[in-house]
């Protein structure tokens, strides 16, 4: 009996001591008290994170884990633009000051809880705005806090419509990339413009990603001669889509809209359809249409046409080698971005363009406040950002669209192994 009585006391002592030590250590290390936190407005009416010669912005993206490639690029492109501009003297602001941009980035591994933690850390360190973060769930988790604390959460690198469809409900949040709805709509418009009866088979991921594509597509073909004659869905965890493709092939549709976001599955769709002797025109989403990883392994050359939406220049493509923007990008990226992102994904170019949009917003900012920044950011029209294709412009004034609300369709050219312009259906 004495055993059981005596034992717990000792444990209490030890656990208590360890816990207390640990907790105190945490407090000491952080050394932060509520009074010191950079939450409130500055004495001269300026928002946190901005002084006469500097402004600090932050981002949390996946820099490790499965989404590390695109995540790192969302940081690297922005870092490249900001680094080059800082070295060039700084950003000019609407209030007449020239400021250096301090850029802080953190890793959230695509985990919403970590993203919230990072956002809290960044605001605690006194950032002015949270810019360009990648990821739907991570940004969705941050959005209500950004609203509550009135911190700009802007130019997000995500195609989900949540962040762009209602500016009145989410005044502090803006999306940057074209939404998946926009991509789907662009497919539909191309078919409608052909002015002839076309039958379509759709294959979509069974979640918001797939639904957004179908919504945009349906919206565009409504009342036209274009008709969906077969449709199928799949789960991202499926290992093969052979049965769906077989079912769709039986319809013999002219066009296949393959809203598949998983690389190996998209390759499987392309190989399966041609093995069944079904050779429709194929529409692929922008994130699963890379020639090297999808089209070549999938034997896309066999199809009469493979289309995908595009809005940025590929800095590695010989077609743009002489382009000034691309040369400036390559130089800046080499200097300031390459140590953050080792391999290129389009996100590098996108986030570089984001830097230019940010510069526009700064230029229109008449007061050093977040309100003024948001107002300026939401009034950019017809801006031709570097690295965007000619004809794609940034317009942030719409309350239900993201910064880039148009895409161009491009068509796969098997001879060059890249994409070229589309001339009608």
């Amino acid at each position, binding site marked *: 009996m004495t055993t059981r009585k005596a034992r717990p006391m000792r*444990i209490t002592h030890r656990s208590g001591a360890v816990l207390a030590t640990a907790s105190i250590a945490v407090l000491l290390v952080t050394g932060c008290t509520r009074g*010191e936190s950079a939450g409130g407005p500055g004495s001269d009416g300026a928002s946190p994170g901005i002084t006469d010669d500097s402004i600090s912005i932050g981002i949390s993206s996946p820099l490790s884990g499965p989404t590390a490639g695109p995540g790192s690029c969302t940081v690297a492109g922005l870092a490249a633009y900001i680094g080059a501009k800082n070295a060039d003297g700084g950003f000019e602001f609407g209030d007449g000051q020239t400021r250096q941009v301090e850029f802080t980035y953190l890793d959230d*591994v695509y985990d919403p809880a970590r993203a919230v933690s990072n956002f809290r850390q960044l*605001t605690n360190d006194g950032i002015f705005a949270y810019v360009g973060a990648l990821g739907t769930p*991570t940004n969705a988790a941050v959005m209500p806090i950004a609203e509550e604390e009135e911190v700009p959460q802007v130019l997000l690198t995500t195609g989900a419509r949540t962040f762009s469809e209602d500016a009145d409900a989410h005044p502090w949040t803006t999306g940057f990339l074209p939404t998946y709805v926009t991509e789907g709509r662009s497919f539909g418009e191309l078919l409608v413009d052909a002015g002839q009866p076309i039958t379509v088979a759709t294959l979509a991921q069974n979640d918001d990603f797939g639904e957004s594509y179908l919504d945009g597509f349906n919206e565009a073909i409504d009342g036209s001669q274009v008709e969906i004659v077969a449709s199928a869905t799949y789960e991202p965890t499926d290992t093969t889509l052979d049965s769906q493709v077989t079912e769709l092939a039986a319809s013999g549709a002219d066009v296949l809209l393959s809203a598949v976001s998983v690389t190996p599955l998209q390759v499987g769709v392309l190989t399966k359809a041609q093995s069944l002797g079904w050779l429709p025109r194929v529409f692929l989403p922008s994130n699963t249409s890379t020639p090297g990883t999808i089209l070549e392994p999938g034997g896309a050359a066999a199809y009469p046409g493979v289309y995908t939406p595009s809005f940025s220049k590929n800095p590695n493509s010989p077609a743009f080698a002489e382009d000034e923007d691309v040369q400036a990008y390559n130089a800046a990226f080499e200097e300031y971005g390459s140590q953050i992102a080792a391999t290129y994904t389009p996100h590098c170019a996108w986030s570089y363009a984001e830097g230019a949009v940010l510069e526009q917003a700064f230029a229109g900012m008449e007061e050093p406040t977040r309100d003024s920044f948001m107002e300026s950011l939401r009034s950019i029209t017809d801006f031709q950002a570097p690295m965007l294709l000619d004809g794609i412009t940034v317009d942030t004034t719409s309350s239900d669209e993201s910064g880039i609300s148009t895409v161009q369709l491009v068509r796969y050219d098997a001879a060059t192994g890249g994409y070229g312009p589309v001339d009608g259906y």
Partner: protein
Amino acid sequence: MATASGTAPATAPATTAPRRRSPLVRLAALLGGLALAVVLVVAPLVSSPFINYQLSSIMVFAVALLGLNVVMGYTGQVSLGQSAFLGLGAYVTAYGVVQGWPLWLSLVLSAALPATVGMLVALAAARLRGLALAMITIALPIVGVPLARRLDEFTGGSQGQVVSFLRAPETTGLANDQWRYYVVTVIAVVVFVLVRNLVRGRVGRSFAVVKENEAVALSMGVSPYRTKVLAFTIASLLGGLAGFMYLAVVQYTSPETLVFATSINLVAAMVIGGSASIVGTVLGALYYVLVPVVAGQVSSSRTALISGAVLLAVLFVLPAGLASLPRRVGGRLRRRTPAAEGAPATPDPDGTAPAVPTPAAASTDRR
């Protein structure tokens, strides 16, 4: 020697011999506990929302880890599905909040539903052992994620659900982050006290004996099957409760909450903190929450690398986890005196006999 130190932390808590206790130690214990309580109460009042978020997260994952420790640390059964219960608890709470249920009902259901699911799974799974059992538990998050995406009426689909609740009542004068911290801390403290008593008592001893040897457990009248089901049920209950706390702190849940990687990270944190140890559970939660933050401060592009290096370093220096640090240091000091030096060899003459550690053996073991 290696065997001895390996098994010691697992069996020690339930089976340790009497200790001489001076009034001084009692006083120190009292003061330690008091200091801890003061720190827990005062900390959020002087800290920024960021610190409070970290402290609250530690509470959340401490409870999730405690559940994992009950089933893995104390009972020795592999569970790689704890994130599924965390996610389920969060979703149940979110559903309750959206439907306008009273908070206590959400709290109860967020624990009861995962516990029921855990028990049903365990009723089948506990007949298996080793890798087969691990496979079944892996299936939970792997099935859970697409399920959460598909049942978007309940879960909000892959975009997840923002749930705003647990705002600080006006009368308290607290900010939301402070109020939420207190709520999760109260839950965590209550849970820790209950589980601590559980594992020190009769149930804890049956966990330990099942972990050591199921045949011996049977011969002692302890049903290994029932014990394992009980451990799994408690683990999933605590996982669900942690899900409630998670939602209270993060205010958002999505299929990412229950991904398999979270389960693996929880297992790693449990091992790092110290298997079958209450203190180790808390240390594991500190590790789970703080190491990524610190790694991010060092280099944001290399968080995974730094976390991995810390993990290896801890396991290399302290194979029994952070909780074994005082014992290791104490052991080093004591080993210098000849009396203590011979002691460890005596109770464990060879590592071959699957002996259930008797109280006496386990205690000398650790001296």
